[in-house]
Structures are given as C-alpha cells and as structure tokens.
C-alpha cells in the first residue's frame, strides 16, 4: 500500500484497519539465487538493489534476530561524505546522492535531514589537515567549506569560546551532511525489497555453510538448510564469527562503540558538531533527544555495552565543548559492535572461497554508507566485479600495501 498523506487520511477514516504489513515475514525456501546474511541496513539495501538494479528477485535476507537489531538500530544516525582519501570519497559521495533521493525511491520517510556536519579544529595542524580534506572533497565535486572562528560562532554560538582548554580556531562543514532516522532506513529498505519479491527471514541464525568441492552453496540455519548460488555476508560486528565458519581469517577486530541519548528537549543544536580536541560529537533528533558519542572503549568486545571511562570521557568532551548541556540529563547509553578493519576502511569484495562474498570492516562509518554499500555489494554479487566507486575496497589490499588509512594509525584497529 503506497504511503502518502492521502492514504494516511483515507486510513484514518477507517480507523487504520486497512494497513498491511510493511514487509512479508517470510519462511525460508529450499533455495535462492542469492542469500544475504544479515538483516541490517546493508543487507536489506543489498537485497533491494539486487532486485531493483540487477533484476534478481529470488533473493533471501536471513536475520538471526529482528531486522535492524544490529548496528543499524544502535548508531548515531549521521550521514556525510567528508572523507579525505580517493579510495573513500567517491563511494561516500555516491551514498550521499542515494540518501538525497532515498525516501522517494523507497516511498518511506527516513527523515533524511541535511542540517550540516561541522568538524572543529583547534590547532593550525588540524586546520591544514581539514584544508587537505576539504580540497580533496571539492575536487570530487563534494561540498565543503572551511570556517574560521567567527564562521563557527555564527552556526553554533553556544560553543565554549570563553574559557576553553583547547580554544576553537575554526571548522570545516559539509552542509549536505546531516542525519537520518536509522530504524526507518531499515524498515524502508525491507518494505521496498519485500515488495520486489525478496524474502526477509527473521529469527533465522546462520550456523554454518554448505560446501561443495570447496565452494559455498548455501547456509545451515536455525531453521534448516538453505541453498544458494551465492552467499553474501553483511554482518558487520559479527563478520569474524561467520567467516570463521567458512575457515576465513580476516583483518578485522570487533570493538564496542558506545552511543548516548539525552531526554527530549526543545530544539537546541542545529546540525552535527564534532569536537576536535576531545572525543565528542553530537546532534539532536527530531524527537528532541541529544544524540552523541565519542571514541571506542578500546578493547575487543562482542557485548553491546561499554564501561564508565568512556562514558566519562564523552561527558567531559561534551561539557568542555558546550557547557550549556550540564543540566540536560543522559537518558540511555548502549554499545554497538564495530567491525574494525586494520586500516579503518571497509571491505566489499568476493572472498577466496567461491560463492562467498564479503561486505565488512565498516568501523564506525557503516550507517552513512548504507545505500552505497548495498548498491556496490549488489553489483559485486550480481556482476562478480567491483563497482567503480568501491574499487579500492579489496580484501587483498592489506597484503599488497594498498591501504586506505584516513587516520594514519596503521594496523591497530582500536586506533582508527
């Protein structure tokens, strides 16, 4: 049933009794052309684009819990394409382009809100780094503006310009950046994929792979065997658990990243703001909650929760940057499990194992990548070749040294 103000009004008159399920809760069939493991944003987007762009409709998405139960449902909802390296910018900009038309494409309001993403700098070195980044963006046709202190003040007069330990010198802003309602992205892709015939199978955990002569020809699940010509993994956070079943060791560690939301208050913060002298970034949701976060806890973890040192570090950053939030109350904090790769950039590739495809290593950049990740992974699976904007995301780049390291931290995942 198409969503619009008219259908909404029409249904209101009939007591909303006519609305149908947003997606079919499918049971597994014996076999599919392709199975996507992982009913998060990336997996569902992959299935949607396989159906829409590549005409493959005999597709299943298998999810061990409820769709969106992983990082898709526990991130801080930021979308941006303000990257520095050529391996990344075209990909994230393609994602931004898809965001800009997503709701009309999916006929689902994901509340894509381009209120701007601003990163602050506090030293000349940081300014030069942002200048390099901003110029790289502009040379890729991406919007970026370098701001001086007054430029920042105009946008966010409430920041600490008075007694800061590390005074704000300026910032770089991507005005097209912003936020989107994370759950709605999951539900929108699920609904649109389901409408195109994709089977979305919840509460179906993959417990192993079906092999024939080394190649992977399907999956064993908590709901029985499902065969498929191609199996794609889109289970960021748990990639190693799955790849291990296939006998594959990866350049990935799982780490916990905490996220925070405050009580709902009237509008206080315009867009997304990122502190440059501490671990803190923040935005405000349409519901009114301040949504913020900081750095990884630093230790490997599969528990979706963190510990106090990071909570305090984030609070200190927040208070140092905007002392006006002192009496605003933290409502809830939780953790997501990040697929931290060894150079801080993702992997979209076929694996050395025939029939097995990999979409992983999203670190904490996964949400913003959702549309392009699905688009490019679908391309990789359908055409057996990388999509041009994801051409750098090869699995073998670590062995060859063609790294994509935005932060220059090298092979220590918890530093990216």
């Amino acid at each position, binding site marked *: 049933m198409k969503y619009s103000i008219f259908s909404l009004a029409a249904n209101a008159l009939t007591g909303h009794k006519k609305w149908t399920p947003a997606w079919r809760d499918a049971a597994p069939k014996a076999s599919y052309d392709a199975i996507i493991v992982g009913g998060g944003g990336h997996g569902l987007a992959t299935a949607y684009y396989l159906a829409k762009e590549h005409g493959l409709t005999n597709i299943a998405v298998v999810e061990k819990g409820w769709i969106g139960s992983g990082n898709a449902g526990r991130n801080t909802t930021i979308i941006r394409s303000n990257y520095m390296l050529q391996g990344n910018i075209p990909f994230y900009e393609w994602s931004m382009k898809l965001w800009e038309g997503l709701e009309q494409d999916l006929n689902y309001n994901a509340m894509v809100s381009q209120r701007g993403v601003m990163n602050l700098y506090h030293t000349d070195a940081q300014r030069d780094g942002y200048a390099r980044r901003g110029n790289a963006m502009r040379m890729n046709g991406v919007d970026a503006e370098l701001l001086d202190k007054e430029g920042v003040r105009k946008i966010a007069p409430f920041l600490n310009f008075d007694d800061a330990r590390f005074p704000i010198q300026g910032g770089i802003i991507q005005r097209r950046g912003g936020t989107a309602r994370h759950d709605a992205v999951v539900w929108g892709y699920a609904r649109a994929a389901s409408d195109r015939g994709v089977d979305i199978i919840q509460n179906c955990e993959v417990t192993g792979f079906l092999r024939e002569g080394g190649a992977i020809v399907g999956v064993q699940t908590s709901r029985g065997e499902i065969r498929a010509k191609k199996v794609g993994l889109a289970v960021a956070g748990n990639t190693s658990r799955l790849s291990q079943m296939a006998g594959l*060791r990866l350049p990935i560690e799982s780490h916990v990243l905490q996220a925070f939301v405050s009580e709902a208050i009237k509008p206080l913060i315009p867009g997304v703001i990122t502190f440059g002298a501490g671990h803190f970034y923040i935005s405000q949701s349409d519901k009114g909650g301040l949504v913020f976060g900081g750095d990884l806890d630093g230790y490997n973890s599969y*528990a979706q929760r963190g510990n106090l*040192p990071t909570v305090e570090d984030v609070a200190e950053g927040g208070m140092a940057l905007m002392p006006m939030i002192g009496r605003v109350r933290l409502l809830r904090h939780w953790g997501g499990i990040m697929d931290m790769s060894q150079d801080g950039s993702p992997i979209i590739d076929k694996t050395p194992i025939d029939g097995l495809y990999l979409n992983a290593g999203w670190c904490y950049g996964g949400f913003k990548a959702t549309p392009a990740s699905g688009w490019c992974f679908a391309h990789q699976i359908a055409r057996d070749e990388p999509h041009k904007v994801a051409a750098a995301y090869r699995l073998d780049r670590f062995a060859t040294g063609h790294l994509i390291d935005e932060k220059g931290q090298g092979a220590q995942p918890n530093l990216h």
Partner: protein
Amino acid sequence: MRIPCPFCGERDLHEFTPRGEVTGARPDPSAADAEAQFFTYVYLRDNPAGPNREHWYHGSACRRWLVVDRDTRTHEIIAVAFADPSIGGAA
C-alpha cells in the same frame, strides 16, 4: 572492568591501554616467506566471540605489558600474566 595486575593488584580499566589480540611471536624476518608471515602476524585476527588472549599495557602504574585472557562476550577476566617471561618473583 577491573584487571588484576600481577604487580599492582586489581585496578580499574582506565589505567590500562589495550593493544588487541596476541597474534603469536614476531616472525623470522629472514624466512623465505617472511612477507607473508609478517602479513599474517600484523593483520589477521581470530577475533573470537569468547575467550581471547590480548596484550594490555599498564602504562599509568607499573608500565608492564600484560597478557590478559578475557571473554569478549562477558568481559570476564580469566587470567593475567606478565608478557615478559623473564619477570619472576613479584606478586
């Protein structure tokens, strides 16, 4: 998280710096396949959901590198030892 440092006793998480999974001994640089061995040593991980052997640095106290066995699902600390096998005696 509370980590029982073999020298300092049980201490809070914030005193330690985690380095991640222990990936075995540094390979022999003169080996014929040294590059492949170093690639495995530097980049590849088991990344288990369960007991994991990790290197942690107690930088703000005894400055010792520790080998910590820890469950990545529960954060339970299973065992802690000095990374330097030549350290005896103390605690």
